[in-house]
């Protein structure tokens, strides 16, 4: 025991003696600990348990009735049904009007009584008083901040007959969700908001047998619902209209229904469906009465099934991943340190220290550094949270009022850091303690072959990880999510074990390489522990871009079924909407307004012809879905036709398109160059498809020449415009930049708000995403490489001095370290790519994540379980990243000085 204590004493002194190295390692450990603690904070503050979520909706009531619209008959029916099913339920009843308060600020106006004790847990006054008169309002704090008002100020809300001015008499807040947007007014005030467009009732209950209640309620409503539907129709709808939504049926005239019957009888359902789409290109602007009950038990079950509880598990997984990365880097550091201290270890052994003492010395240093790094990292995280609370709040749903840490949030990462460092130190310590004393005294570390069992063991661990991941993902509960995270970490660990044999193999086969890469590879082989740890550390980082690229590829394949996605700067403007919901054609004045608001790089106006167009392949896929895959539903996207005038052709600037138009008089804007088949106004025709990226939902897919357009003169036409907004290169790299923001921001709420599509912030082109992901990866890999280079350079420097002494240029050091980091990056990528692809395939195959469905689009059927390999991105990672990282390393390190070399062996 005393021997071990003295060994730890030596370890502590070593840490103190090598202050610079200790400081560096502590810093290295502390940064991921900070990230891990912060991750916990974000996850905790971003996570609302199903219990909390449900409770926050019920408050103290056990029956909540939320009403939209105005129907006394419906309210009477609800009253009778509820009294019958749950006579003793404590009710909270209010009316609600869902509103868009400002661009992208959605919420509701409610007339809940804030003084009612039943509201406790749903909403509470934090300042001022509750509204007393019809023109008084209480705003939630977040909504007040959107309006930039406080108590005593006034705000304007959109009422049934225009804007209504209210005086803010109080501020309220939701106990959990800080971003809730609600305006609370009196029941009298609410009369100004009742909307006939949304005639629905929502009942939420937590009575004793709430499942029984909601079931009984649903059955009662199924029987009674048709009593409340428009009386001029036969309800329920005839079965032959199976494809027709109730609301369309209610809105159709007798003549239209007669035409529908004729089409079904004479031409079939397809024609009837096309007719339906032509009648309701923009849907309908009213709803049928609807009432539904959500019981607390059902809500809880749904929340638990829907993976909402895996937040903390994922957070822990991320933290564990970060700390695994640290363990790899620390492993490299301790491996290097131990090699450098081999003589010292030999001396200890020569003076009677046992293997255990020697091991304790190195492991003790790991313990000291892990502990210091953990404490320092946690302290840093605490400071960040204290001083950055308001910034953090913007990114999480839960209100951060108190100290957002639990003891486990801090103790967990510290503990993992200590364990990671101890394990990282233990491996080289075990190797060093096994070196014969005389060999150690000479400073020589014998190089052994990698153990034969490592490869099968690594593959076995990885395969077991895949199994756990698959099982965990299939489970869909928090426990199963934990299993999935453990599975993913085992996969990474298994792949990491392969790094050592990989390095050894390449080192062994370096015979034919030129001298510098040969020295690098041989050194890596000799210092396999350090090199393998570096490769594994790089592998962990490289997994992120592979996963990101695979996801992009997956999403792009999904999107491509609807056409090639354009840059976010392409906007299609199809008209304007008045404040009463009336749709107006696009005018020159509108376009002039657009040009004033955004920098337009190019613009084209064209005539859209409202001829019904169908894609037979799409219909066939919908009719006969593949029985082997799950059905993910389908939305017919109405195709449109436009006249390809000079402006539009110049905008699209595609020779293939012009050629097809000249030859056939029409062309289809699709996803690849091929001949396709479409049906225009009931007539099927072959058409040349040309791959061009345009707005998938709004840009006309069929372009015709003016001569061909004359054949469709019976259909209505209207002007549309497509514009390309200029983006600076910096803006194009910014994923949050929204080119069309001034358009929707300035036109919103006016008499002529633009009706447009595109220009959103999330639609950064995949090229930009790949570039950003590559840059971010490069940056992180560089940091890791810098850490490992700094640790290994001292060891390599004595050899490099010799190489310089026998005639190498001083730049050999740059070349050596550049090659080393490039090779480590390449090996890391070679491990990360198959590992991540297997991981992604397992995830995609899981019903819990993708639903395992397939989706029919205009141009193809997308199977969500298929992994789309991002070959281009992989090529970049395998070629460009290692080269770039090698080059940057070579350019940033210093050359070797010309000095007489010290003993190298």
């Amino acid at each position, binding site marked *: 025991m005393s021997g071990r204590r003295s060994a730890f004493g030596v370890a502590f002194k070593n840490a103190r003696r090598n202050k610079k190295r200790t400081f560096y390692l502590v810093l290295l450990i502390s940064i991921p600990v900070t990230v891990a603690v912060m991750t916990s904070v974000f996850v905790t503050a971003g996570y609302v348990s199903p219990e909390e979520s449900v409770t926050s909706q019920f408050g103290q009531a056990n029956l909540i009735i939320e009403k939209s619209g105005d129907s006394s008959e419906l309210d009477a029916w609800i009253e009778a049904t509820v009294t019958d099913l749950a006579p003793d339920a404590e009710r909270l009843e209010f009316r609600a009007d869902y509103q868009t308060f400002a661009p992208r600020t959605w919420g509701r106006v409610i007339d809940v009584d804030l003084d009612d004790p039943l509201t406790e847990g749903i909403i509470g006054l934090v300042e001022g008083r509750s509204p007393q008169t019809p023109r008084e309002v209480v705003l939630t704090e977040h909504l007040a901040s959107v309006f930039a008002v406080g108590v005593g100020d006034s705000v304007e809300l959109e009422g049934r007959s225009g804007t209504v001015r209210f005086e803010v008499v109080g501020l309220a807040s939701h106990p959990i969700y800080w971003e809730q947007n609600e305006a609370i007014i009196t029941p009298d005030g609410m009369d100004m908001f009742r909307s006939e467009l949304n005639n629905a009732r929502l009942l939420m209950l937590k009575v004793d047998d709430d499942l029984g209640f909601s079931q009984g309620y649903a059955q009662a409503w199924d029987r009674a619902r048709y009593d409340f539907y428009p009386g001029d129709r036969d309800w329920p709808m005839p079965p032959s209209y199976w494809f027709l939504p109730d609301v369309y049926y209610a809105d159709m005239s007798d003549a239209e229904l007669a035409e529908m019957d004729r089409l079904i009888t004479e031409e079939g359902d397809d024609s009837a469906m096309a007719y339906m789409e032509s009648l309701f290109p923009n849907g309908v602007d009213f709803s049928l009465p609807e009432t539904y009950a959500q019981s607390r038990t059902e809500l809880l079950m749904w929340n638990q099934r829907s993976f909402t509880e895996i937040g903390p598990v994922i957070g822990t997984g991320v933290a564990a991943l970060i700390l695994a990365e640290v363990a790899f880097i620390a492993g490299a550091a301790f491996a290097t340190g131990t090699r450098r201290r081999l003589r010292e270890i030999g001396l200890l052994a020569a003076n009677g220290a046992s293997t255990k003492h020697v091991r304790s010395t190195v492991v003790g240093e790991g313990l000291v550094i892990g502990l210091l790094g953990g404490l320092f990292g946690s302290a840093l995280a605490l400071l960040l949270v204290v001083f950055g609370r308001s910034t953090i709040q913007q990114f999480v749903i839960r209100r951060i009022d108190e100290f957002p840490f639990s003891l486990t949030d801090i103790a967990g990462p510290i503990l993992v850091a200590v364990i990671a460092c101890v394990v990282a130190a233990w491996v080289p310590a075990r190797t060093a303690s096994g070196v014969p004393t005389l060999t150690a005294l000479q400073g020589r570390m014998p190089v052994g072959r990698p153990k034969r069992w490592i490869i099968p063991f690594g593959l076995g661990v990885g395969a077991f990880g895949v199994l756990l991941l698959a099982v965990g993902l299939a489970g869909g509960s928090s426990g199963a999510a934990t299993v999935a995270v453990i599975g993913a970490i085992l996969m990474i660990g298994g792949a990491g074990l392969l790094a050592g044999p990989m390095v050894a193999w390449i080192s062994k086969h370096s015979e034919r390489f030129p001298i510098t890469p*040969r020295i690098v590879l041989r050194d890596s082989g000799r210092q396999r522990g350090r090199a393998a740890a570096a490769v594994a550390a790089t592998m962990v980082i490289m997994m992120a871009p592979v996963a990101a690229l695979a996801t992009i590829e997956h999403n792009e394949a999904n999107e491509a079924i609807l056409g090639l996605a354009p840059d976010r700067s392409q906007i299609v403007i199809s008209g304007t909407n008045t404040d009463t919901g009336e749709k107006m054609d696009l005018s020159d004045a509108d376009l002039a307004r657009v040009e004033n608001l955004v920098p337009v790089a190019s613009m084209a106006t064209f005539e859209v012809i409202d001829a019904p167009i169908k894609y037979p392949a799409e219909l066939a896929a919908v009719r006969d879905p593949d029985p082997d895959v799950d059905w993910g539903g389908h939305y017919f996207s109405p195709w449109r036709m436009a006249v390809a005038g000079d402006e539009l052709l110049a905008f699209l600037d595609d020779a293939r398109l012009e050629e097809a138009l000249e030859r056939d008089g029409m062309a289809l804007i699709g996803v690849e160059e091929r001949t396709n088949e479409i049906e225009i106004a009931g007539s099927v025709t072959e058409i040349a498809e040309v791959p061009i990226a345009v707005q998938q939902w709004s840009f006309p897919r069929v372009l015709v020449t003016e001569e061909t357009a004359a054949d469709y003169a019976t259909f209505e036409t209207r002007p549309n415009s497509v514009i390309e907004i200029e983006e600076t290169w910096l803006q194009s790299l910014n994923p949050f930049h929204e080119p069309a923001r001034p358009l929707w921001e300035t036109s919103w709420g006016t008499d002529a708000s633009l009706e447009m599509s595109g220009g959103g912030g999330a639609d950064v082109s995949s090229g930009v995403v790949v570039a950003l992901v590559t840059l971010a990866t490069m940056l992180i890999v560089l940091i890791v490489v810098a850490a490992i280079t700094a640790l290994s350079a001292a060891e390599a420097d004595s050899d490099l001095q010799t*190489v310089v002494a026998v*005639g190498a240029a001083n730049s050999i050091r740059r070349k050596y370290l550049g090659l080393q980091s490039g090779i480590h990056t390449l090996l890391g990528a070679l491990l990360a790519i198959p590992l991540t692809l297997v991981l992604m395939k397992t995830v995609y195959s899981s019903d819990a994540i993708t639903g395992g469905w397939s989706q029919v689009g205009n141009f193809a059927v997308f199977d969500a379980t298929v992994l789309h390999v991002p070959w281009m991105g992989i090529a970049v990672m395998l070629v460009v990243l290692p080269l770039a990282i090698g080059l940057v390393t070579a350019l940033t390190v210093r050359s070797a000085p*010309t000095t*007489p070399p*010290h*003993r*190298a*062996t």
Partner: protein
Amino acid sequence: MSEPILKMRRVGKTHGRGAQRVDALVDIDLDVASGEFVAITGRSGSGKTTLLNIAGALDEPTTGNVWVEGNDLGDLSNNDLARIRRVSVGYVFQQFNLLPALTGSENVALPLELDGLEVREARAYANLALEEVGLGGMGDRYPDQLSGGEQQRVAIARGLVGPRTLLLADEPTGALDEATGESILKLLRDRCELGASALMVTHEPAFAAWADRVVRLRDGQIEEISVRSTVPSSTADIYS
């Protein structure tokens, strides 16, 4: 008279400043002609290794000038100095300084490969050099698979490989037995007779006797230069 392979004029080397100042070399004038074998002797700390490092373009003099094959080292760029070390100067280090990651023959072939020679050709030259030092057939072994004496001979082979004109050896026989040491000195001698020059640091008077001239250093200055009229064929000749 032809230009000496190595010429040193008023070469001085100072380490440290103020009270810490140490004059390792003071006003050294030394010429080593083509085919000449010069031994440097002196006590520890007399400046022998510093002199050798400056001659080998591994260190810069604080004062004075050094010419190798007529090139003033002070005027050369780092890359030119590297070329001098690679092509003209063969350096045998006291501590061997073999790269542990390379085999014996790879260590010997290192300067040739750095000079752009094909790997196979460089390896062939290296094997010849290894045979010369008595290590034929051991080129595939790594330094940690060789004894101290064998490592020293690999280091010597690396210094001798290729068409070097100036051989610098720092205690090249330190780890060798008498017979092997003698064979190495004979090798250096033979190289000198083929036109190369050699500058060898040694403590051993018997080994110094193999040189044409012996330069004795004391406190960084040349204390004495003695010239031998006859060249021994073995160390026994010297003692006899």
